[in-house]
């Protein structure tokens, strides 16, 4: 009796496990198939069609040698990439410093109007990008600030701080402040405690926040479009290209960016070290 039940249950679990594997496979397929298609098509020996015509690396060679491939001008793409990287790096540095400080303020102190302040801090995460873009554009116009990569950095910092603060604050919530007391008890002053105990212990949170901020900045289209003026970033450049049809040049640039991004994430994870 019991044996039969156990066998039935085991069989059910076995079939269930099969379903689970299938489901997982579908999720990953859904997420990564488009990317795989894009990378594959970047090796497609056809100028226009999305139909496979044979393997070639000629688009890569051409672009890397500075030739224009199907309206994709490598110099323009390169400029756009430089702008994107410049904005993202500056934004990450500023947002990480201020976002982390903000997280500490919210975690450690009570002050009048804290709830309201917290709400305002996290607002940029939920307000639609288009509203953010327009309001920033208005602000820069009224303030008389020339649009360019500088204003793009300011605009990105405006939401980057919020993302870093959310992630770091979550990390601080689980941080045991007795650790800081132990350090001070052993003769470390406030700065030394921060340097040797607090920061090393919340480092994973800071890294995660910085990485998220980088990603948010790097692929932001809407906010950037409003406040960057005549300059280009990669998303804006791509959007301009794709409007006139998919070109092998776009595929190549996108494929290269995927490879670089994945490498960056791997490096960041390695630097982040273990978690406690």
């Amino acid at each position, binding site marked *: 009796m019991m044996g039969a039940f156990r066998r039935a249950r085991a069989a059910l679990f076995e079939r269930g496990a099969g379903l689970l594997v299938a489901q997982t496979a579908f999720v990953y397929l859904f997420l990564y198939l488009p990317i795989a298609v894009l990378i594959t098509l970047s090796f497609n020996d056809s100028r226009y069609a999305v139909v496979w015509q044979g393997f070639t690396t000629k688009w890569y060679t051409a672009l890397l040698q500075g030739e224009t491939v199907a309206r994709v001008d490598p110099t323009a793409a390169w400029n756009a990439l430089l702008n994107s990287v410049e904005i993202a790096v500056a934004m990450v540095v500023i947002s990480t410093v201020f976002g982390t400080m903000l997280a500490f303020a919210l975690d450690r102190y009570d002050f009048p109007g804290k709830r309201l302040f917290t709400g305002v801090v996290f607002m940029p995460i939920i307000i639609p990008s288009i509203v953010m873009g327009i309001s920033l554009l208005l602000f820069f116009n009224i303030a008389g600030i020339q649009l360019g990569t500088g204003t793009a950095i300011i605009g990105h910092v405006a939401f980057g701080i919020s993302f870093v603060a959310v992630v770091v604050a979550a990390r601080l919530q689980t941080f045991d402040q007795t650790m800081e007391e*132990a350090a001070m*008890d052993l003769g*470390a002053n406030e700065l030394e405690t921060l340097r040797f105990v607090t920061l090393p212990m919340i480092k994973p949170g800071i890294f995660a926040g910085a990485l998220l901020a980088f990603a948010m900045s790097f692929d932001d289209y809407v906010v950037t479009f409003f406040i960057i003026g005549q300059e280009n970033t990669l998303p804006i450049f791509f959007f301009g290209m794709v409007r006139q049809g998919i070109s092998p040049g776009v595929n190549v640039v996108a494929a290269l960016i995927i490879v670089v991004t994945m490498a960056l994430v791997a490096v960041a994870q390695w630097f982040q070290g273990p978690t406690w």
Partner: protein
Amino acid sequence: MTDYDVRLEGVTKRFDDVVAVNDVDLRVESGKFLTLLGPSGCGKTTLLRCIDGFETPTEGAVYIKDEDVTNVPPFERNTSMVFQSYALFPHMTVGENVAFGLQMQGVDGSGETGRGGVGQAVKRLVRRGSNEEIESRVEEMLELVELPGTKDRQISELSGGQQQRIALARALITEPAVLLLDEPLGALDLKLRQNMQVELKNLQEELNTTFIYVTHDQEEALTMSDQIAVMNDGHVEQLGTATEIYEEPATEFVADFIGETNLVRGDYSDTADGAAIDRNGRTYVVPSNPEADATAGFAVRPEKIRIGDEAAGLDNSFRATIIDEIYKGNLGKFVVELDDGGRFTVDMQIRDQGSYLQTGETVQIGWAAENSVVLTE
């Protein structure tokens, strides 16, 4: 002249409306093991944190080695704390944890000692220096806590008992004037806790360092302490040796909190050959107490009450009925009731086979006056 490592004068700590510590005066002699004993919320941990510098007293002063440290931050005080949660740094190895105190004191790679000027402060922020002196001291400390050769281990690889020892080594390496321990054995199982109690006491005697130990466990306090300060409601009820606290509790709270006792409230009066306390028309003979005005009653320990024939002829001797009994192997615990309804718990050594008593039996109980203690409010 006696040296005091820690002196508290009128220390009061208020958190908003709550008075956590209320006007505490306390002196801790050098090289002694003092325990702050009391129930949760009695202010013992707050008092410990005032000594270490994590809390600043609202009123009063804290002296360490005769130096007023009331407003000195914890990192400039010559005290070390062993935390209940150990608070070992998880991102450092065992050796780095133990070395931390020396590194922060400025025993750095340059060989200079002491906390120097700005330049040194900046240098210390860049990296935690290490040198042969620190390395050898770390090894010494690890040997002291019987964990030699563990310096390259990760904290997560250690058991609870081992972490406890590392926390101790880390706190002691700076040779503090006072070691403060905040219920450090709370997380260990009973057997390990009992072993650690003995080891802690031995360690304290070996180092001759002043220990201030916080616990709510009376057995722990009685086992280890030279002096016990029983705390209640923010103030010290009684300061004394383990024997004094147990045998001569000063207040009703102490008598009740330490061990088991029979409390009898009543009216005190001096008599020709001593003193007496009246309750329910019955007179109990007690030792006389100079602070008679403030007396609340008296206490007598269950093991001090005789039962059976040997109870006859004692200062206090009454007929009583056994209403409950608990067999504990080495002794019998009986709850007896007098004819006026007064109840006493009595411990009886079971020395002879068949001498055990049953519920419902009527027996004689009694105790000598000097075996009871008159309590103040």
